[in-house]
Structures are given as C-alpha cells and as structure tokens.
C-alpha cells in the first residue's frame, strides 16, 4: 500500500490544506497573547482597581452625590440623544433603502461622516457655533440661552458622534428585504402608517434594536466630544466618563475605577446582548463586519 501514490497524495493535500501543529500552536499563542495583553488585562484591571480598597469604598464612591448626578446626567443625555437618532435613523433608512434617487451614495457618505471625525472635533464645531466667542454666541447670550457648558451642548455633541449608528444597521437590512411586503400591504388598502408599523418595523426589529444598542453604548460612554462642550462643572455638567477623568486626575484612583467599572459593566452587557443578537438573528443583522 505504501508505494501506491494515492495515500501520499492525500497526505500531501491534507498538509497543504491545514496548518501544521506547530504553526497552529504559534498562531494561536500569538492571537491569545495579543488579546490577553490588549483586551482582557485592561478589563480585569478596571474591576481589580475598583475593589482595591474593599467593597465599602467602592459603594461609597458610586453613591456619593457627584457620582449620582453624573449617572443621572449620562442617562438623561442618552435618553434624549438615542431616541433622536432612532427617529432620524429610521427616516434615513426608509428614504435610502426604499427609493432610488440621485445623490443617494453622497447622502450615505454624509451620514457616515461622524465616524471619521475625531470626537474632539465633534465637540469643537458646536463651541465654534454656540460658544461665547462663537458665531451665534452673542445672540444666545442676549437671549439668555445656554448651550455650551450646559445640557444642550452635551446632547448635541452626543447626537453628532452617534448619528450614523441606527441608519447604518438598518439600511443594508431594509435593502436586502426589498419593498414587496409593503407594496402588497398598500395594494390591499393599508394606510402608510399602518404599513410601516405592522410590516416594516416588525421586519427590521432586530437590526433596529442592534443599532439602538450600539448607539446607546457610545452615547453613554462618549468622552472626547463631551469634554469639549462640558466645561466640567462638577455635579452639573459632568457625565460619567468626565467624572472618571476628574477623579483620576485628582489621584482618587479607587473612586475613578469604581465609576469606570459601572461603565465597563454597561459595555459587557452591551457586548453580551450584541453577541446574543448575532447568534440568534444572524440573517437579520448582516452588518456584523462594520462597527
């Protein structure tokens, strides 16, 4: 048997198709080592540092008034920014996925624009518009309207950085589904709103949820853009990430990591939900490869 050419060919083919043991061991070690060093170690560090001085101090750090007001402000900003982007994202996806018009790819590029703008610049543009020395600054001051160093500025900067999330997840899904369901409903006499609420929304609910999930995670964790517009007035305009920064710069490491661990917890819940959605509704969420 051994001098027959067939087993040798099979053996060679098999070797050419699969990495050898040592190659596999090497690549696996490199991949795991890299992920351990750059992903898992930072995550573990957050929780270790948060509980470094015991559970009591951790609890104290996250229940002191400034921390609580930071939590409240973060939730409030997300509660305004996320629904706004939800409505705009659904509208954008409807226009882009269901209709053919000229300038569509330009519109998509514009919607994606915030992803390629530095977060700091996302905040800067509003300071240039609404800040004391900005284009509209004097007018706003005369009318006693505060945008920069106040809630509206935080909300605007957050909406800017999270603008593309919902539309990006919805557009490819709605395009893939086509319009025949809606056309059938309309032909059978359903009103436009009824068609949208009972046909379109249920069809895309998982990718919509997926987009909102990512949008929310980014909205609550945004740092660079809100740094610029916040003014860091403690207890008033500090969101959780900004509160973390203040505590860290005051060398209050335990408190900084305690608040940071709440945000890390949010990230882990987001990842878990995201992974669950991807495993169970892989077809509905085709956008896994994009952020």
């Amino acid at each position, binding site marked *: 048997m051994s001098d027959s050419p067939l087993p040798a060919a099979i053996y060679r083919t098999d070797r050419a198709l699969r*990495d050898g043991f040592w190659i596999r061991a090497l690549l696996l070690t490199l991949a795991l080592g890299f992920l351990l060093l750059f992903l898992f170690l930072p995550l573990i560090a957050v929780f270790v540092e948060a509980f470094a001085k015991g559970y009591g101090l951790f609890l104290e750090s996250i229940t002191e008034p400034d921390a609580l007001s930071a939590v409240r402000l973060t939730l409030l900003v997300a509660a305004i920014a996320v629904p706004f982007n939800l409505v705009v994202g659904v509208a954008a996806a409807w226009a882009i996925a269901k209709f053919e018009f000229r300038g569509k790819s330009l519109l998509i590029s514009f919607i994606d624009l915030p992803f390629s703008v*530095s*977060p700091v610049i996302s905040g800067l543009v509003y300071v240039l518009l609404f800040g004391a020395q900005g284009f509209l600054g004097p007018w706003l001051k005369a009318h006693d309207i505060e945008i920069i160093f106040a809630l509206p500025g935080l909300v605007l900067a957050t909406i800017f950085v999270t603008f593309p999330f919902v539309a990006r997840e919805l557009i490819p899904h709605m395009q893939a589904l086509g319009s025949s369901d809606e056309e059938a409903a309309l032909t059978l006499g359903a009103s436009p709103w009824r*068609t949208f609420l009972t046909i379109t929304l249920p069809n895309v609910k998982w990718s919509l949820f997926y987009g909102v999930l990512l949008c929310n995670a980014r909205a609550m964790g945004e740092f*660079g853009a809100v740094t610029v517009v916040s003014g860091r007035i403690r207890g008033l305009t500090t969101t959780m990430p900004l509160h973390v920064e203040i505590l860290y710069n005051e060398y209050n490491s335990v408190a900084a990591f305690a608040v940071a661990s709440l945000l890390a917890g949010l990230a882990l819940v987001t990842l878990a939900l995201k992974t669950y959605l991807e495993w169970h509704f892989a077809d509905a969420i085709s956008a896994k490869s994009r952020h």
Partner: protein
Amino acid sequence: MAGPSISFTSRRGDCVAVTASSWRQPSILPGFGLSLAITISALSLIVLIPLAALFLKAASAGPADIWAIITSARTQAALRLSFGAALFSAILNAIFGLIIAWVLVRYRFPGRRLLDAAVDLPFALPTAVAGIALASIYAPNGWIGALLAPYNIKVAYTPLGVMVALVFIGLPFVVRTVQPVLEEADADIEEAAALLGASRLRTIFRVILPGIVPALLTGFVLAFARAVGEYGSVIFIAGNVPMFSEIAPLLIVIRLEQFDYAGASVVATIMLIVSFALILAINGIQSWSRGRLGHV
C-alpha cells in the same frame, strides 16, 4: 428629461398624479418626501452646518496666521505623533488582526466564540475607561510596567504609551473586515491549489492572501483613521508632555481652553482633510476590489 407619469386613484377616492421627476425613480411607497426631509434637516443641523462653521472659522484666520499655526513646532510635533503613532499601531493591528481573524475562522478550540465576541470590546468600552485602565497597567508600578521597568523600558507617559492605546482601540477593525472574507473564501480553490501540487506556503501567498488584501487594506485604513482622531483612551497614558507625547486632538482641546479658536480650528481642519482623504481611499479600495474580484 421628464419621467413617466402615472395616475391612480387613492384610497380616499381622489385622483393622484405621480410624476416621477428625473432624479428619482417612481415608487408606490409613501413617505419619500417626509423621510428625506427629516434626514436632510437633521444631517444639516447636526453635522453639515457645524462642520461648515469649522472650515469658516479656520479660513477666517487669514493665510499668514494659518501658515504660522501649521508650521509652529508644537503643532508639527503633535501632528507627527498622532499620524506616526496611528500608522504604527494600524500596522501592528493589521498583522495581529489577520492572525486573530485566521485563528477565529480556521481553528476550533474551546472558548472560540467567547473570544470572537470579546474582539468587539474596544468598540463597547468607553474610551476614558480604557484609558485609565491602560495607564494603570503600563505605569512604572503597574502590572506590565513593573515587568518592563528593570529593562528601562517606559511605556506610560511616552509615545510608546500612545501607541499602546491606539492598538487597543484599533484592534477590532482589521479582525472584523478580514473575518467575513475568510469565512466566505471557498475551500475549493485551496483544495485545487493543493491538488495541483502547490505547497502550503505557496497556497497561502498565491491563493489565500490575494483574496484578503482588499479587506485587510480597508481594515488598516479604518484602524488608522480611528487612531488619528482618538482622544479618550490616549490622554491618560500619554503623559501629554508638549513636543513629546502630546497628540493633535489634545492640542485642539488645549487651544480651545486658551480661547484660541483659530488655532483649534486650523489643527482640526488639517485632521479633517486627512480623514476625508482616507474615506476616499477606502471607497477606492472597495470599488477596486469589486472590479477585480466581483465582491467586496
């Protein structure tokens, strides 16, 4: 050119004439005007007008001042660090991202799906949290910093620290662009190559890699673009020494805090122009690979 005109009777019984204008194809679906109006108003108010204000502010500084800001040693040092560190970290991410994608797609081992999910952590973890965590690990008394200290290697508070942070935030981009291409790659072609007598190395370099290159390039550019503008994860570990470990986004924040709006706008505009060039590059890569391979 006028499009075709269709008239039909709506539910309420009145006759509606739909004349498709030349810029859009006719459709019986409602809501085009409303949804496009919402999209364009929000886009203009939130994104386009504010960005236009930035360009206007930068331009209003006047050519002499703009040149002085661009050529100032501090601006140059900050831009060099931001772009240099971003380039280095994107290269590192391209190499390890490819290895991680390969391992996740081709190998079966316990915990693989968990690892796959964990790759997205940098997208989900707020940048400030990543920043303080990395700073504490790589500080001279941190877990890794203490290991490196005897060899006189300083990571935190040096440009090396900037790169570490940028590697962290750029990691998912290459993995997530290469992974689907590897998953879809046909094993048939590899088998054919092997049956035709190609060695494993030859198969990898002549059959597998060419198909991945466009995705790898896209992931590389995405990681690079993200790294150039990154702020939150960097400033804690960088130490922020002017001319040494100060990144361009931080320089923008510092100029703003000094009420030097023109200085901030000019640096921001340079960064934006480069980012836009990068988007064009990505689009170029994608249409090139579509033309070449028939898919992205």
